[in-house]
């Protein structure tokens, strides 16, 4: 890059090259790549562990019967393998969770990003994130021993285990998930956009709802999708508080069974290997994995999108 007139006449500069190959460097790179391979192996392991037994399961039970059957009694005679009640149970709890975490998570994000002052933010943000650090079994305990009795006292006519309390407690647990990703997306919105809107006479409310939220929409949607994926995959709250009864109902007062609760309840026992009951764990697991995989990939794409736009 040096100007030619300076080097002219001087001895040509020696080409920069390593004097010898350093094998130690290659070894290090190899070891690091091996570490990275652990996560690839995990994914491969999950796919193999789920799908091999699931395929065997579907040799006995037809996929159509599984996906459309409305009776789930794999452990009783006569056994019936219709997964619809488990899916409806999962959706019912997820719905209540979303009704909590989407409005309040988004509200918390807007508050932290657009309304709170520096000091308030510094205290409230970690406080809210504490919610994400509480183990799910503790939320299950809380839903079963506090929220359900409270709702019963209010005269809601709940069963001891029910979809409503489990869903609402799960929704509160997911508020930080929605809030932190949405807030990240909102803080990535350039200041200029806000300043421009203020200069045109907008109020803080208008700037938040008409400038910041639309500009951050891909990140906000990503946070919603991730919350759905988490709700569908959550186990302990539903196992304790929503029950283990595969009811085909959207009535939030009734006990239901989700896909995760079925896997946990059945996998704990000593179900004999090679029995069809044992394989149901994997069939339901594969269904759950595929459903969450689609949502996760979608949300990863969306997050990448808002990063690309503003960073």
């Amino acid at each position, binding site marked *: 890059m040096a100007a030619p007139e300076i080097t002219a006449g001087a001895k040509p500069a020696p080409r920069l090259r390593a004097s010898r190959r350093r094998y*130690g*460097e290659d070894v290090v*790179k190899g070891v*690091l*790549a*091996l*570490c*990275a391979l*652990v*996560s*690839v192996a*995990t*994914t491969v*392991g*999950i796919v193999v*562990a789920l799908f091999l037994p699931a395929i065997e399961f579907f040799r006995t039970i037809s996929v159509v019967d599984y996906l459309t059957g409305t009776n789930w009694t794999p452990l009783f005679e006569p056994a019936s393998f219709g997964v619809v009640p488990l899916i409806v149970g999962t959706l019912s709890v997820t719905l209540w969770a979303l009704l*909590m975490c989407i*409005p*309040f998570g*988004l*509200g*918390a994000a*807007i*508050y*932290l990003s657009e309304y709170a002052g520096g000091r308030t933010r510094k205290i409230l943000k970690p*406080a*809210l994130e504490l*919610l994400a*650090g*509480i*183990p*799910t*079994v*503790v939320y*299950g*305990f*809380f839903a079963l*021993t*506090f929220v359900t009795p409270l709702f019963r006292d209010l005269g809601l006519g709940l069963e001891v285990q029910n979809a409503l309390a489990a869903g609402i407690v799960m929704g*509160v647990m997911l*508020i930080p998930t929605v809030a932190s990703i949405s807030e990240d997306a909102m803080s990535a919105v350039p200041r200029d956009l806000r300043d421009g809107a*203020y200069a045109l*006479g907008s*109020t803080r409310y208008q700037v*938040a*709802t008409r400038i910041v939220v639309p500009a951050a929409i891909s990140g906000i949607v990503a946070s919603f999708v991730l919350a759905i994926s*988490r709700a569908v*995959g959550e*186990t302990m709250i539903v196992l304790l508080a929503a029950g283990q009864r595969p009811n085909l109902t959207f009535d939030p007062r009734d006990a239901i069974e989700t896909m*995760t609760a079925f*896997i*946990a309840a059945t*996998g704990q026992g000593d179900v004999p290997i090679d029995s069809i009951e044992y394989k149901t764990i994997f069939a339901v*697991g594969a269904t759950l*994995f595929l459903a*969450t*995989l689609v949502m*996760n990939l979608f*949300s*990863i794409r969306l997050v990448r999108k808002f990063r690309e736009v503003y960073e």
Partner: protein
Amino acid sequence: MSAVQGDIRGGGRRQGELQGRLFSAFLLLSMGVGLVTLGTLIVKVILDGVRLVDPVLLTDSPSADPAFAGAGPAILATIYMGLLLIAFTVPIGVGTAVYLEEYADRNRWYNRALEVNIQNLAAVPSIVYGILGLAFLVRGLGLGRVLLAGAMILTLLVLPTVIIAAREAIRAVPGSIRQGAYALGATRWQVVWRQVLPAATPGIATGSILAVSRAIGETAPLLLVGALTYVAFNPTLLGDFTALPVQIYQWTSRSQAEFRELAAAAIIVLLAILLTLNAFAIWLRNRYGRKW
């Protein structure tokens, strides 16, 4: 800014103001829902369980008689598992992070696939990791339902979180430090080992501790790899085991009020362990963390 705004606001002011106020109220409510629930949960657990947090709970074995039941083996197993998790996840997680940040060529498809893979693994439901453990560790390898299998499956579960935290810490080390070292003739590994990693250590340590504290609160995967609910002896690496969250689950699912109180007491112990870990992580970050 607000003073200026006040002066300019013109027509339609009444209606806008009302909407704005309602909106602010909604935002405060949003913050309140989470914080009030958190507070209620903590008060509820303490009221139910604090009188049972005693030497019997901390050291004795579980028992069918709630008056003599303790969580000693479960607490020990959870501590062992925390130590194993640190030993397993930190080397593998930091190794992967260094590979991705310092070595991998972003333009190669497999490196980009690796990144997406890790992001997805971070969001796979924990029960699915339990199935993985059941299929491969417990039955495939014939390891049985042992502590080591539990620790290994939790390792895989938190690995993505550790990798993501370590990558952020490594990325925060300014490029000028690397270039300075290269200019003095350091090889790539010398740059990583003597410059980048020491500078990133506080961030990596904080992230790893937070990840491990999340892992030891996990219950679902341990149910599948066979944490038992009744273990009357102290845990060993290749023996039957239980863990504090599993013990809490078991006590909660019994209908007698006495066992529910025991569950609350065990929750207090678990939350105390997690709070200690979190406080330690935050202290590390404040004490040694650096803004570049």
